[in-house]
């Protein structure tokens, strides 16, 4: 029929997987991660991308789904994931030998249609990257996902972010707003999540997320009212400065003790 648009997958007929954070679900305007999407969590190190991914996988499990963690970076600690809300029984851990293989395995899982959500952690180091092959693989993964109902959350370092940004259906920029502290103890961090790209909805919305160390979303009910936002970059203690200078990267080092992290 003339004038009729080609049936583009829309949020209404795709459905969505909850992110585990109500504010983010609203910001995405699709009620969560749209099914069949490759979502890039664009965040510097320590800005909560891994916690957000684990929280999203836990929420998918609560909705009756099976999830996978494709661990090309080799950073997943199952015990920590469990503490953050993941049911290990329904978690498939994939350990590929290279980022390229990780993308290929993700494609297979997406094609099976039996995994609802997967986190694809490609790590920080570009040593084993297959260059253009990796981006092409991710492009292919994105197309496979669109045909299915799985959601892939992509965690990667700066080396790949720019290249991946154009193949991701959803891009979420994460930035730390503040530490959350109770007294002198750091108990979490407040993250500002900005939807910078969305294939099926209007981008630009932001959400403020509180990520609690150690306990994920299953936090003590008493903790949030007690927590006070602090400066995002607290001053370094003298001793910490001495050791931190010797390190390669002057990362933010709060002078506070971290509880149960």
């Amino acid at each position: 029929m003339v004038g009729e648009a080609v049936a583009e997958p829309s949020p209404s007929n795709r459905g969505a997987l909850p992110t585990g954070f109500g504010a983010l679900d609203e910001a995405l305007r699709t009620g969560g991660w749209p099914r069949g999407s490759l979502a890039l969590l664009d965040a510097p190190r320590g800005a909560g991308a891994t916690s957000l991914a684990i929280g999203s996988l836990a929420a998918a499990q609560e909705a009756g789904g099976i999830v996978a963690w494709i661990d090309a970076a080799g950073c997943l600690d199952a015990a920590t994931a469990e503490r953050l809300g993941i049911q290990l029984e329904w978690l498939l851990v994939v350990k590929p030998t290279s980022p390229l293989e990780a993308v290929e395995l993700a494609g297979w899982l997406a094609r099976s249609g039996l995994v609802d959500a997967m986190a694809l952690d490609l790590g920080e180091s570009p040593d084993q990257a297959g260059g253009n092959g990796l981006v092409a693989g991710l492009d292919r993964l994105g197309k496979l996902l669109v045909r299915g109902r799985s959601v892939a959350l992509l965690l990667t370092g700066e080396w790949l972010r720019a290249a991946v940004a154009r193949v991701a259906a959803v891009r979420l920029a994460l930035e730390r707003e503040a530490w959350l502290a109770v007294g002198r103890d750091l108990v979490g961090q407040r993250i500002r999540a900005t939807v910078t790209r969305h294939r099926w909805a209007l981008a630009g919305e932001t959400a403020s997320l509180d990520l609690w160390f150690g306990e994920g979303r299953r936090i003590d009910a008493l903790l949030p009212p007690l927590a006070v936002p602090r400066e995002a970059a607290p001053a370094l203690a003298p001793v910490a400065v001495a050791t931190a200078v010797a390190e390669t990267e002057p990362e933010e080092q709060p002078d506070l003790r971290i509880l149960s992290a």
Partner: protein
Amino acid sequence: MTRILALIWPTLRTAPASHAGHAAHRAPADAPAEAESSVDVPAMLDRLDDLSPRVEAVDRGVALVDVTGLGPSLGDERRIATRAVAMVREVATLPVRAGVGENRWLAVLAARLALTARPDPAVSVAFHAFPDGLEATRAVLASLPLVLLPADPDTRQRFALFGLTTMGELAALPRSAVGAQFGVSGERLQALARGEDPRPLTPRRRPERLTRRVTFEPPVEGVGGTALVLRRACAELCDALKLRHLAPGRAILTIDLEDAPALTVELTFPEPALEPDWIARLLIGRMEAASRTRHLRATSPEGEEEARVVAIGLAFDRLSDPAARQLPAFQAQAGRWEELRWSLERLATRFGEGRLWRASTERPNASLPERQAGLRSVGGDREDET
């Protein structure tokens, strides 16, 4: 007239030592537990199927075979029993004892009494048979002690209080008197003491197995060279099953080698599968891995070369209707995980082992968090722990 052969081996839990009054009637000491667990009972029963179509597995340590009418073709009962014991011993070298009687109770009792025949050097198998006819059998039973009856301790004590020590004494009492004193169970024991057992032998249904065997003439170099034939064998068996709306749950591949022991690869499917291509690929993957592990290489004057394959045998069993498969209930993920396992099998074949893992809480109270959870390999026919 029915004749039943009972075979018992040491896993049988006989009467406790305190109940065994006569040393001659006491069962021999049980074999070590590891021997018990290693006995392949289904394979033993499969062998006995060749003797008679009516075989019943009563317990892990007792099998009954209906040998009625086998005399003209196989010889007397002792010869039949010797043959049956030899068949069982081909699967597991166990001290099997054999007994023959008119019903299942008499057959098992005869097998228990077979120990008395053991000292006879002319007899290779511990064997005992009750004579034909109930009257003759009762005459033999009459002198046997009551401890041989499957009675509970209280009943045994009451028998002793009444001065009953042999089966003949119990059998001679009026049935109504036994019922009044010992109840229904007493009546049942009296019937056994009289050599009566109404329970029929219920033959087991022989598990179906489809097999295909291909012989190579001349032998093929290396296990890899058999892949094409294996694919064709898988396709043929799957086609045969497809017509009957059945699918195998397990595939067993046996590779006969020229200068090395046979290689057996077993593959249990996560669900009944009728995909010959994937079954063949999984079997080939396992076969090559097994051959690497076994270092199947022969040394020839020209140097080291791969072992030559003489024949391959493929068997499909655990047949079931794939449409009638019951998935685990109550957990949303359980059924889908079973389906996923099949995909993981394929992934493991495509990418190799060690890629796919499943996490589980191993030691929740471990002091170090990294020791609380562990990973188990999935995607193969086993789940390895790390």
